[in-house]
């Protein structure tokens, strides 16, 4: 696919012809500039690919009214290049990441695709992140990606969270030993909550009480973020949390419910300790199941 960028584009049909148009800038009627770079692009393609560009280029605003179209975008340049490439090539190309982390790049591309509402690229980026995060060789890179998800994507969109959470859970014990991770999770209460609920779910395949699953996009996240009150757990719950003693099913259920319901008001340190306890508990639980 990469080889055919010759001027003899008609060999490859429309698909290759489009690529050629981007490289040659032929018939371009719009220049996009960003961080000093410029791209000669075609309004029709932008319009077709992105509703945002469509409105920008056909509405009553300056971008559409001015004849010599130069539009300056204030975006992540690498990701923007991937976006433009996608519009012409219909692919996901992480060569624009340079020597940077491909996992992080996937998040950046996801963010820009979200901003310009290029849904196909959005899902391509999410897929990429999924496949990359399944075999993390490098925990710091993973944590950097987590940070990016927290920082530059729409906090109400849980697509990427859903991808990384299982990986966090899987490697929770290891991750908890890394300061970077602690830093990250403590910053991200929504993520904490999600993690806790996942642990709770794992406990029993068919819970007798289905607790309301705390979704990051539910309003409760606001109250979590705004809360400052300290909360104490009832003694049995704390006992269970610390992983001590035998647990009857009733108590396990109590633990689960307590986590899910009351955790919304946790303090930082408590969260951490619970997570640690949870990790231990998880281990213990797996042991019990194995035995």
């Amino acid at each position, binding site marked *: 696919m990469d080889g055919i960028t010759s001027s003899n584009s008609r060999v490859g049909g429309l698909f290759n012809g489009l690529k050629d148009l981007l490289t040659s800038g032929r018939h371009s009627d719009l220049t996009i500039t960003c961080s000093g770079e410029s791209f000669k692009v075609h309004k029709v393609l932008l319009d077709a690919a992105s509703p945002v560009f469509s409105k920008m280029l056909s509405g009553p*605003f300056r971008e559409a009214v001015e004849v010599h179209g130069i539009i300056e975008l*204030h975006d992540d340049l690498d990701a923007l290049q991937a976006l433009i490439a996608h519009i012409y090539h219909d692919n996901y190309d992480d060569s624009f990441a340079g020597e940077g982390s491909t996992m992080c790049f996937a998040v950046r591309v996801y*963010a820009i695709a979200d*901003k310009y*509402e290029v849904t196909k690229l959005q899902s391509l980026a999410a897929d990429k992140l999924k496949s990359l995060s399944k075999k993390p060789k490098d925990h710091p890179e993973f944590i950097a990606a987590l940070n990016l998800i927290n*920082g530059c994507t729409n906090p*109400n*969109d849980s697509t990427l969270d859903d991808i990384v959470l299982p990986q966090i859970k899987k490697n929770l014990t290891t991750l908890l030993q890394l300061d970077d991770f602690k830093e990250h999770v403590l910053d991200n209460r929504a993520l904490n909550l999600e993690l806790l609920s996942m642990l709770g779910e794992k406990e029993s395949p068919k819970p007798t009480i289905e607790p309301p699953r705390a979704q990051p*996009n539910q309003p409760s996240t606001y109250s979590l973020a705004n809360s400052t009150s300290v909360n104490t757990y009832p003694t049995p719950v704390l006992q269970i949390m610390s992983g001590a003693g035998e647990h009857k099913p009733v108590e396990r259920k109590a633990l689960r419910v307590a986590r899910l319901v009351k955790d919304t008001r946790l303090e930082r340190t408590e969260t951490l300790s619970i997570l640690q306890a949870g990790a231990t508990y998880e281990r213990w639980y797996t042991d019990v199941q194995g035995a």
Partner: protein
Amino acid sequence: MVLPRRKANRMQGLNVPDVDFETTWGVLEKAFLEIHTKNASALSFEELYRNAYKIVLKKKGEELYHKVADFEARWLSSEVRTKIVATITPPLQLLTEGNGGRLLSSTAERRTAGENFLRTLKQSWEDHGVCMGMLTDVLMYMVKDRVYCTDHRQPSIFAKAMGLFRDQILRSFDRPNGTMLAECLTKVILDQIQMDRDGEKIDQHLIKANVYMLEGLYQSDQEVEEEKLYLKMFEPYFLETSAAFYREEGERLLKESDAGTYCKEAKRRIDEESDRCRSTISEATTSKIQRVVEDELIRHKMKGLIEMDSGVQYMIDNDKLYELGLVFELEARVDPRKGELTKAIVKIVQDMGLAINRTAEVTSAAPPTAAAQDDAGEEKQKAGAARQINQQTVAALKWVEDVLALKERFDSIWKVAFNSDQTISTALTRSIADVINAFGRSSEYISLFIDENMKKGIRDKTEIEVDATLEQAIMTLRYLQDKDIFETYYKKHLCKRLLLKKSQSIDVEKQMISKMKMELGNSFTLKLEAMFKDMTLSEDLTGGYRAHVTRLGQADAKRVELSINVLTSMTWPLEAFRGAGEDEREGRSNLIFPGSIERIKTGFERFYAEKYSGRKLTWQTNMGDADMKATFPKSRNGRPMTHDINCSTYGMLILLLFNDLRADQPLSLEEIQTKTNIRESDLKRNLQSLAVAPKTRFLVKEPMSREIKAGDKFYYNDNFSSKIIKIKVGVVSAGNKVEGDKERKETEKKNNDSRGFAIEAAVVRIMKQRKDLSHAQLITETLTVLSSQFKPDVNMIKKRIESLIEREYLERIEDAPVPSYKYLA
């Protein structure tokens, strides 16, 4: 973050330092103001979009939403509202506040002011829509984000802004304690529509644009379809005012114009209102306003319209088919059964029918009273009676023709004006049937009508015309209830036609019978067909007898030839030939025949007895006729001439007596009677034809007078002269005429008897099949079975049942819960 500095640099826009909401909103707000003042082209979409995006990313989407809403509310309530309120000038204030608004200001003033108001409102609404479109575009990311986080009861920002237009503009008042703008709008539109109805020009597009706005807005932000402002704040008022307007208009029209004009006007108004819905308001209202106009102009006024002086009666009287069509069309709109019109038509048909019936009764009843007062001699009275009978026949013919004409007239009205409507057709059929059955003599009259046509009417007609005439007769029959009575009359009339050879064409007679067969069924025509069969058989018989005589070799030139009709006694209504007051025995007096006649009489009796043993022949001499050759010495200018005379059997017997006498030898009445044994009344009647009627005066009477009296003498008239060779001697009262009262009573009695038999037969047949049955059911079934023949009187059925019980065909079931009967085998 483990990223090279260079990279971090390139990632501007990512992980932006905390956005200051107020500052960013400030940028947006300023831009929104520009958009509302139509300066969008100076703004950068990218910048605005980016700012909104940043706000959302920082989880301030909800706040942004409310800021935008607040901004719009402020803009609308201050800038836009002020502009609109400014257009509510005094003429409009008068219109919207008081009831007299339409009177206090001139139409022109109100129109200009109204249009100004409408235009400003339309412009504001359209601007609002355009601006909100632009805002929504800029806020696209916020809109998208809200998919994640809104509880969905909150409207989209666009819908919210539309709602704000409703709340801030339409639901605001033009001034404190003033009128709500929505109400102003409704009233202004209604005022303009009224101008349109009054025939003035208005700007339809302007109103349509405002209606369009009302259709795009809802009572609440939930945007429930049934709660469009149009449906809540305009349509009901529109319908209400329209109803009031048309109620008045309808009443005015009823008073001021004729029914035809009313119909045209109503139609025009209905069309106009649906046009108005299309061009000026909303098509959704079309059916509702039509309903209103139909209610006011048609449904509530139909009765009045039909009963107007220029109403349906007038239209029918004057053949105003187009107007009748309009009335029909109008009523068809509101009532698929066309109740009022049908009722009116039925009444008119019945009235006209009654008039026809009454005329017939008057024509047939008037002469006898006149004749009864006239007692100037027997002769005159008799002539009067004859004239009366004749007049009745004429009345009968006229009646049938009138009824047919009535039916035809309404049929054509029905076809042209009533669009061949089924309901009206049924009603017409019923009323024509009512007319026919309300007339006591309809059965007889219809039969007479056919009789007249068979004898004379069809003479000069083509086959098609004849067929049409027959068809007409059948049509009247179709409506007739008492078909059994008709059958009696028809048999009587047919009998006379056949025996007296009055019928123009036997083929046509047979056609008629087959038509009746199709219409009324086999059993009805059975006896009629038997009559034709008798006629054919008789022809064969006559031929057979002639051949038989020839074979016997008695070749005799002077031999009398016999032509005979052998009639099956039950089939033929022979009483038809008897005059009133003669009973059966009297009619069969034994005549004395001269030898030659007596010979062939006995000869034929022998011949017949050989052929059909065990049958008894009774000679109906009163029905016979004879052809004779007679020579009168001075008939042709003093020279002898032989005439062919056709006369009745009686006439023949009388004339033969004079064969053996000299010219100066007289015979008295008494002598003639002794020699022939003809009954006195018949004898007198025949002598009258032979000695009084000028063209057939073969005998001379002494003394010369019209009346035949005892002791009168008769001579052979050797001075008879006529240029005609074939002379037919008229026999008094041989034709088919309307019955006299006495005959009628007899017919009725006979008819009642035969009905009695028919009822008994029906009852027995039913009971045989059902074994036992309740009284009510038996009555119903009997009525059903007999309905094709006649409509029996229930009392008569009861009597027949009683009689059957007496004769032990049936018995009462004693302990049955309802009166019931049991069949006894």
